[in-house]
């Protein structure tokens, strides 16, 4: 190119005013970032409900879904990611009228803004959705869904009431879970249709029938998965209110993990599925036998410890008594009373322990074979309680108390002799 201007060149710049600052040059990235932050700052765009027609949906290998949402005058690109797609009731198809819920954001790499879809429902259900939202707000305002209303499900239920259809997999699943897990419980079925126009009043009636029963600890309201319309009766105001009215804790397990109905909100506990509801309602009985056996073993160990303690006591007191014996012989004139008292006190304690220990051995037949205290010793006591060691200390006709291992013999002195101890040893 030459230096001469041509027709294609921009006209020469006007002479600029010297004060005007140079324009700030943005990078494309900066520009798109700025637009994005503008959109992100708008709270209304973060939570929009849009009705429109699905056009040209694509399902690439990534598992996401992209489509255009349009009406006669306008259109917007929409993205439905794999996670959300898995949860939606309908799969977007070309020409389908839908209501989507989501947020609008800019996608910087391509300089476009689009609708990020969180949920999508057929437009026919649009009315339902509006009603669902309206009812949810109304009941929430009344406090029906308050956390503080929620009661704890009893850990050891005796009777569990169930409202569901008596036909079909749900009722069978609940029975199977409880048979495996906690068959000690009594199941009280209050059957109800759970689909169609008749479902809502039928569910309410079935619940009320259970409420009138005595001794129900927990109630389960359950239904298997289905379309939005199938599950609709669990969004019915009458049903939601009846759930909130439950006199005992109620668990609602409807549909699949992703389905949340208003009845779920009103329940004391929400279960992702009917089987999960049965599990949440009961302790795990498969572990119970082992737990109970551990309790029994702990009881045995504790008693053994207790008995061993008592045995040590008896042994040490016996040794103490034996140590006293020489003193008795050497100084009985001076200290007879004192020693007698001491010996009696110790003897009594030994005796009490001995009897108790005998009983412990009884109880511990298997655990404690000890019989050291049953070797046949006896203690004779005079009427005033003194232990008789010398025949001279009693007279013919005196009453005697002879204490043996397992009781007491009441006796009377017939005659006294100073010999005879050899006989005893023979």
């Amino acid at each position, binding site marked *: 190119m030459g230096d001469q201007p041509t027709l294609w060149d921009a006209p020469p710049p006007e002479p600029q005013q010297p004060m005007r600052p140079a324009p700030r040059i943005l990078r494309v990235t900066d520009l798109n970032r700025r637009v994005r932050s503008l959109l992100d700052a708008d709270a209304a765009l973060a939570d929009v409900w849009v009705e429109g027609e699905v056009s040209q949906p694509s399902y690439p290998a990534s598992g996401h879904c992209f489509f255009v949402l349009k009406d006669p005058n306008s259109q917007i690109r929409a993205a439905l990611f794999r996670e959300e797609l898995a949860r939606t009731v309908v799969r977007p198809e070309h020409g389908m009228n839908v209501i989507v819920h989501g947020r609008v954001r800019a996608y910087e790499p391509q300089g476009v803004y689009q609708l990020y879809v969180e949920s999508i429902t057929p437009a026919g259900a649009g009315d339902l959705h509006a009603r669902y939202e309206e009812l949810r707000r109304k009941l929430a305002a009344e406090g029906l869904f308050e956390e503080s209303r929620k009661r704890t499900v009893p*850990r*050891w239920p*005796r009777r569990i009431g169930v409202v569901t259809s*008596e036909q079909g997999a749900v009722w069978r699943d609940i*029975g199977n879970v*409880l*048979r495996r897990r906690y*068959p*000690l*419980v*009594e*199941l*009280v*079925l*209050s*059957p109800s249709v759970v689909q169609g126009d008749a479902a809502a009043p039928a569910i309410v009636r*079935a619940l009320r*029938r*259970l409420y009138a*029963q005595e001794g129900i600890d927990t109630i389960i309201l359950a239904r298997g998965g289905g379309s939005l319309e199938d599950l609709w009766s669990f969004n019915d105001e009458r049903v939601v209110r009846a759930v909130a009215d439950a006199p005992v804790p109620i668990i609602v397990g409807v549909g699949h993990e992703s389905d949340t109905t208003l009845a779920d909100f009103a329940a004391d506990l929400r279960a992702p599925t009917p089987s999960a509801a049965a599990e949440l309602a009961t302790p795990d*009985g498969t572990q*119970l*036998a082992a737990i*109970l*056996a551990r*309790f*029994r073993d*702990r*009881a*045995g160990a*504790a*008693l053994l*410890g*207790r*008995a061993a303690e*008592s045995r040590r006591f008896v042994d040490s007191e016996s040794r103490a008594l034996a140590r006293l014996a020489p003193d008795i012989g050497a100084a009985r004139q001076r200290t007879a009373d004192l020693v007698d008292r001491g010996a009696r006190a110790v003897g009594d304690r030994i005796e009490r*322990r001995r009897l*108790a*220990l005998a*009983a*412990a051995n*009884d*109880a*511990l037949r298997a655990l404690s074979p000890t019989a050291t205290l049953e070797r046949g010793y006896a203690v004779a006591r005079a009427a005033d309680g003194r232990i008789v060691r010398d025949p001279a200390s009693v007279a013919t006709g005196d009453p005697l108390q002879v204490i043996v291992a397992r009781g007491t013999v009441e006796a009377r002195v017939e005659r006294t002799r100073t010999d005879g101890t050899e006989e005893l040893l023979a």
Partner: protein
Amino acid sequence: MTEPLDLAALTDADLARRPFDELVAALQRAVQGLEAGNVGLEESIELYKHALRLHAACETRLREAELTITELGRRGASPAGGDDAG
């Protein structure tokens, strides 16, 4: 939740009729009483005997338990073996 059971006054047949959770609670109390160690030997023995009885009762119940099913509002039509529609 429940009053402590008076084990001494109950026969094994009585125990078999008590709710399972009561038995478990009583067993737990007996074991805790024993382990606390602040009761006399005689009382310990009683507690131990109670624990054995309660454990046996619980075990029997677990072994023999069969899910009971009652169906409401459908007198005589229940195939599930519930005896009374209440």
